[in-house]
């Protein structure tokens, strides 16, 4: 059994980002994907605070305090990148202009409901940021998430227990164990890591899984 590391999960999700795509990467794990875009593809990264064409983190000495990403980390702009205001950033998001939003999640349901904004933990004030806008607005929403919680509870559920970010929005799920598609006909396993068969994966997943005829082993290089 070879579950993927977090960096490998990001690597796997990055392989599916097509040349020319306009992409918003959610805070945390999804942000890592920009490090793993296959050679030769030109991808334009969007940030809800008014950037299109975000580059990698700045090299030492090149930091600019006025240039941050949605996670409030310092970032850079690539040639061709542009700045705009928050309202235009959300015209892009909500109006279906982004090809892909790659987001983190607490839970995903079998019908593609996404819960990623609050666990209702009374120790934290709630906060939603741009999560709901991205979930309803991007042409395609994919999620990167650990297959189960630290306590071993499935994160792919029949119905989300946590408050929804948006109903019926997730199309593909990348976990440390599998790549799964949310279809009109339930959840389909496209890839599984070595050491798993459908029964093994099913035991860690709440809704009924189907195995794609052309399923493959999920493998990622050491990254």
């Amino acid at each position, binding site marked *: 059994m070879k579950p993927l590391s977090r960096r490998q999960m990001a690597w796997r999700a990055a392989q599916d980002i097509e*040349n*020319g795509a*306009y992409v918003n990467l959610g805070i945390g794990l999804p942000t890592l994907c920009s490090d793993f875009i296959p050679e*030769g593809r*030109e991808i*334009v990264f*969007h940030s809800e605070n008014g950037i*299109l*064409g975000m580059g990698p983190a700045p090299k030492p000495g090149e930091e600019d305090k006025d240039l941050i990403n949605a996670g409030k980390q310092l970032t850079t*702009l690539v*040639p*061709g*990148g*542009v*700045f*705009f205001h928050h309202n*235009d950033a*959300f*015209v*892009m*998001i*909500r*109006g*279906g*202009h*982004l090809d892909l939003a790659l987001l983190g999640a607490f839970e995903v349901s079998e019908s593609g409901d996404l819960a990623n904004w609050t666990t209702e933990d009374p120790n934290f004030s709630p906060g939603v940021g741009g999560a709901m806008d991205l979930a*309803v*607005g991007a042409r395609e929403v994919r999620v990167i998430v650990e297959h189960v919680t630290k306590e071993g509870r499935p994160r792919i559920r029949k119905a989300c227990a946590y408050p929804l970010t948006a109903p019926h929005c997730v199309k593909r799920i990348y976990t440390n164990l599998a790549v799964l598609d949310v279809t009109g006909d339930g959840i389909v396993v496209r890839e599984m890591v070595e050491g798993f068969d459908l029964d093994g994966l099913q035991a860690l997943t709440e809704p009924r899984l189907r195995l794609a005829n052309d399923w493959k082993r999920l493998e990622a290089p050491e990254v």
Partner: protein
Amino acid sequence: MIDKRVRTLAEAVAGVKHGATVLCSGFGAVGEPVELLNALRWSGVKDLVCVANNAGTGDEGLAGLIKDGRVRKIVCSFPRTTDPHCFEAAYKAGKIELEIVPQGTLSERMRAGAAGLGGFYVKTAAGTKLGEGKETREIDGELYVLEKPIRGDIALCRADRADRWGNLTYRKSARNFNPVMAMAAALTAVQVREIVPLGALDPECVVTPGIFVDRIVVV
């Protein structure tokens, strides 16, 4: 690599279907993508619904499309502009349907289409003939009408400079409807004066980010 440059006007307007909704930019002839509109005319497409501020000047561009009977309906704020004879002839002959929309509402409806909104309430036209038949609602003691978004199958725009990603700048009042129309269509084709290398446009001064643009052609 992302490269939105196309070589010909015909390529820039390729794939438009009969009956398509075409957002035609410009304020009178200023900022009007005349050559793209001419190319659309040569493509033979018909039964178009054109959304524009005016209804064409002279015999070229939007006026030419109307002259050739390709436009089933025009949605605009003010059909008469400098030399509107093509529109006037079609209108008097009952060959073109006209929907008058207040200029700000026209622009705002396209922005709503671009921004993923389902509609908005606006005071403009409430209590007037142009507000008749629209859902009316009192908000904080004033009357508003509900307006629906407009989205185009294609937007034809005109800009000054572009790069291969489709980032655009405009010139003076030729900016007008171009930025909002560029955002509000499934496909956006832009004629530009000049294409510059990627990175040559000041990222603080780009008016239309390339995400809204699909095809650019130098005219």
